[in-house]
C-alpha cells in the first residue's frame, strides 16, 4: 500500500509529498515529489545589478539566509580577484557561526517534535532564543539581516556588542550540556533514534550527501576546510561520526554547535582593528564559489558583464539530502512514525531546494542527477 504524506501535513515543515510504500506498519521504500514552492529566483536575478542581487540571494532560504549572501558576495569578490579586510572576514565568520548554531537548534527541535518529545523541543527553542538575540544585536535584524555587501559588511561591530555576544555564548555553553545529556542518555529517545534510518558511507557517497547528514555517515568533509578565513585564522576541527542513523545526525549537530562556540570565542578574542568595507570594481567574468551552510555545501555559479548578473545558478545542500533520505534512509524502517522522524532528522528545507524544476526533452519532470543537466552550464 502506498501511504501519501503531504504536501500539507502537520508532520512536515514545508510543502513536499512523501509517498511511503508500506507493508502493514513497516515502511519498505519511499519516493519524494518536489515542485510545490518553485519561485524562479535565479531567473528573477538575471538582468539585475549585483548590488540588488545580494538582497534576492538572501531570500533563497528561510533559515540559513545568511550564508547565501556571504557566498554571493565572495563569488563576486573572486571575480574581482580581491579579498575583503580581515576585520570584515572575522565579522562574516562570526555571523556565519551564530547562524549555524540557531539553524542546528531549530533542526534538532523539529526532530524532537517528530519524536513527540515536546519537552526537548521547547528546550531547544529556548536555547535558540538568546542566539537570535545576539544576531539581532549585531546586525539589526533576526533572519533576513541585510548585513553582507560585496566588499565587506554594512556596519562595524562595537566593543559592547562583541562583549555581550561573548556573554550570551558563554551562558549557552554552560547551560546546554544538560540538554544534550537528556538526549544522549534518555532511554526513550535513544530507543526511537538509534539504528533507525541508517545510511552507509557508500550510499552517502553515491547519493552525494553533504553537511551533517554526510558527516554522520562517515564522510569526513567540510567546505570550511577550504575557506581562506577558517584555514588561516581559526583553530577548529571537523566533526564526524560513523553510525549513520538518526542519533548520529542529531548528535553531529550538537557537537558542531560546540565547535561553533569555540570559533566564536576565538573571533571575539582576536578580532583585528581596521576597515569593514572596501569598494570593489567588478570586471566581466564567470566563476564559482562554495561555502558551508548549516545544512551542507552551497555553491554559486555566476556570470556577469561587470554591472549586471548575466547568469546565476545556485546549488543548495537540501536537494541532495532530501534525495538520499528518500533513496537510502527510508529503506526498511520499522514504523510510519519512524519514517516521519527520519525525514525530520535530515533537516529538509524545501524552500531552498525548489528554485528550479528540471525537465527532460518531453517536458516531464526529471530526477536530479548532477549539475550537468542544468541548461545554462553546458
Amino acid at each position, binding site marked *: 500500500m502506498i501511504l501519501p504524506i503531504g504536501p500539507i501535513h502537520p508532520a512536515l515543515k514545508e510543502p513536499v509529498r512523501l509517498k511511503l510504500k508500506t507493508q502493514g506498519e513497516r515502511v519498505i521504500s519511499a519516493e519524494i515529489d518536489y515542485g510545490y514552492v518553485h519561485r524562479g529566483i535565479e531567473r528573477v536575478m538575471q538582468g539585475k*545589478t549585483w548590488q540588488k542581487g545580494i538582497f534576492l540571494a538572501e*531570500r533563497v532560504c528561510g533559515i540559513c539566509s545568511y550564508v547565501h549572501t556571504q557566498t554571493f558576495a565572495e563569488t563576486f569578490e573572486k571575480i574581482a580577484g580581491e579579498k575583503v579586510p580581515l576585520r570584515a572576514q572575522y565579522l562574516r565568520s562570526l555571523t556565519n557561526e551564530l547562524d549555524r548554531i540557531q539553524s542546528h537548534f531549530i533542526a534538532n527541535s523539529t526532530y524532537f517534535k517528530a519524536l513527540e518529545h515536546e519537552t526537548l523541543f521547547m528546550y531547544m527553542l529556548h536555547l535558540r532564543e538568546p542566539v537570535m538575540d545576539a544576531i*539581532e544585536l549585531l*546586525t539589526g535584524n533576526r533572519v*533576513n539581516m541585510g548585513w553582507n555587501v560585496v566588499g565587506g559588511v554594512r556596519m562595524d561591530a562595537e566593543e559592547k556588542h562583541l562583549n555581550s555576544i561573548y556573554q550570551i555564548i558563554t551562558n549557552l555553553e554552560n547551560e546546554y550540556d544538560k540538554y544534550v545529556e537528556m538526549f544522549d542518555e534518555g532511554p526513550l529517545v535513544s530507543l526511537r533514534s538509534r539504528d533507525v534510518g541508517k545510511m552507509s558511507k557508500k550510499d552517502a557517497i553515491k547519493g552525494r550527501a553533504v553537511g551533517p547528514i554526510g558527516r554522520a555517515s562517515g564522510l569526513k568533509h567540510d567546505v570550511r576546510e577550504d575557506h581562506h578565513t577558517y584555514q588561516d585564522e581559526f583553530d577548529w576541527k571537523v566533526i564526524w561520526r560513523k553510525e549513520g542513523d538518526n542519533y548520529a545526525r542529531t548528535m553531529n549537530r550538537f557537537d558542531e554547535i560546540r565547535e561553533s562556540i569555540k570559533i566564536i570565542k576565538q573571533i571575539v578574542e582576536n578580532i583585528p582593528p581596521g576597515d569593514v568595507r572596501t569598494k570593489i570594481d567588478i570586471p566581466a567574468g564567470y566563476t564559482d564559489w562554495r561555502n558551508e551552510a548549516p545544512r551542507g555545501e552551497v555553491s554559486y555559479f555566476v556570470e556577469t558583464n561587470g554591472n549586471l548578473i548575466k547568469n546565476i545558478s545556485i546549488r543548495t545542500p537540501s536537494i541532495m539530502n532530501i534525495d538520499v533520505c528518500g533513496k537510502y534512509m527510508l529503506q526498511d524502517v520499522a514504523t510510519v512514525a519512524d519514517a516521519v522522524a527520519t525525514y525530520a532528522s535530515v533537516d529538509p528545507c524545501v524552500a531552498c531546494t525548489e528554485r528550479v524544476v528540471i525537465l527532460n526533452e518531453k517536458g516531464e519532470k526529471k530526477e536530479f542527477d548532477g549539475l550537468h543537466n542544468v541548461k545554462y552550464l553546458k
Partner: protein
Amino acid sequence: MSSLIWYLYEFARKSWAESFAVARTNPEIVETPDRFRDFPEVFPEHCISCGACTAACPAPNAIRLVRSEDTAEEEGKAYPVINHRGCIRCGFCAEVCPTVPKTITCGENHLIREEFTILPTDRMFVIDDYLCIRCKKCLKACPVPGAIYEEDNKIIIDQSLCIGCEECLNNCPVKGAVKGIFISHIQEQKEIINLVVNTLEESIERKRDDITHLSDEEVYKFDLSITELVERARSILANDELILDTFQKITDRLKLRIVTWDEDKCKKCRLCVDECPSGAITYDEKENVIKRDTKKCLRCSTCYQTCPFGVAGYFVSRFLLDPTSLEDGVIHITVKASQLPIGAD
C-alpha cells in the same frame, strides 16, 4: 441553563463592572534593540527627486516618487513614499541617497561613507546634436520630468537629473544619436580607441599600392577580421560590453583620411612646403628631396589641393562593423578618392 444563570450572576457583580471599566492592555515590554532596522524613514524636505532610491530598490513597487499638488504660489514638492507591504527593509535606498542630510534613513545605514552612495550604473547618456533628428521620442520616454529638455531647437540631457535608466537610448530611432558613454575606465577606453585607429590605419597602409591607382569613380573594398584586435583589447580591459560598445562607436563615426605621396611625379617646386600648416612637409637641400612626416601630418588635404602635378593623393575611408558581436566579427572598409578640387588658386 444553570451555567447561563451563573454567567448573568457574574456579570451583575459590582467588582466585575469595575474591573471591566479600568481594563487596559499591559504596557509594551518588548524593547527595540538599538541597531534595529525598521522601515526607512523619509524626510521629504531634503529630497531632490533624483530617483536614485527607486532605481536601486530590489523589491517591485516598494518605493515610488510622488509629487504634491502645484499651487499658484509654488511648485509641488517631490518625495519618496514607501509601501510597507513591498519593502524588504534592506536599506539600499538609504545607502544610495545622495542628499546631505539624507532624505531616507534606515537603521544605522545612513552612517555609511560617502563613496558608496553611488547609483549602480556606469554610463552617462548624451545626445549627439549632429545626428539628432529632433523626433523627441527620448523626451517622451524619459521617466524623470525635466531630465531631457529642448532649448534653441536642441535636445539636451540634464546630467544632474538623469537616473541612467537607458530609456532614451532604447527609444531613439537613429543609431548613434543617443550615446551611452562609459564613465569608468576612461584611460583604458582611450587606449582601446588608439589601438583600433592605429590598426585600421596600418591595414590601409598595407594596401597602399592598390589605393594609389584608384580612379575618381572607383571604390576599393576589403575586410578586416577583428579577432586579434579583440584579444589585444581584452588584455587592456576585460569587459566585453565596453569593448563592443567602443568598437561600434568608432566604426560608426570614424572617417579616416589618407594622403598618398608619389615622389616620381615631384618637380621640386616647393609650393606645398609653405602651405603645410603643421610643418610636416620639408625640403632637404643636400639630397634635393621633398619629405613628408606622416606622424606630424594632419590629413588636412592642403598639399593635395596645392600641388599642380598630382604628387599627393587624397582618399577617404569608411568603416562598418559586421556582425555586431565580438566573435568572428569583421570590419568592412571602403576607400574612395576624394572629390575635392585640385590646384586651387
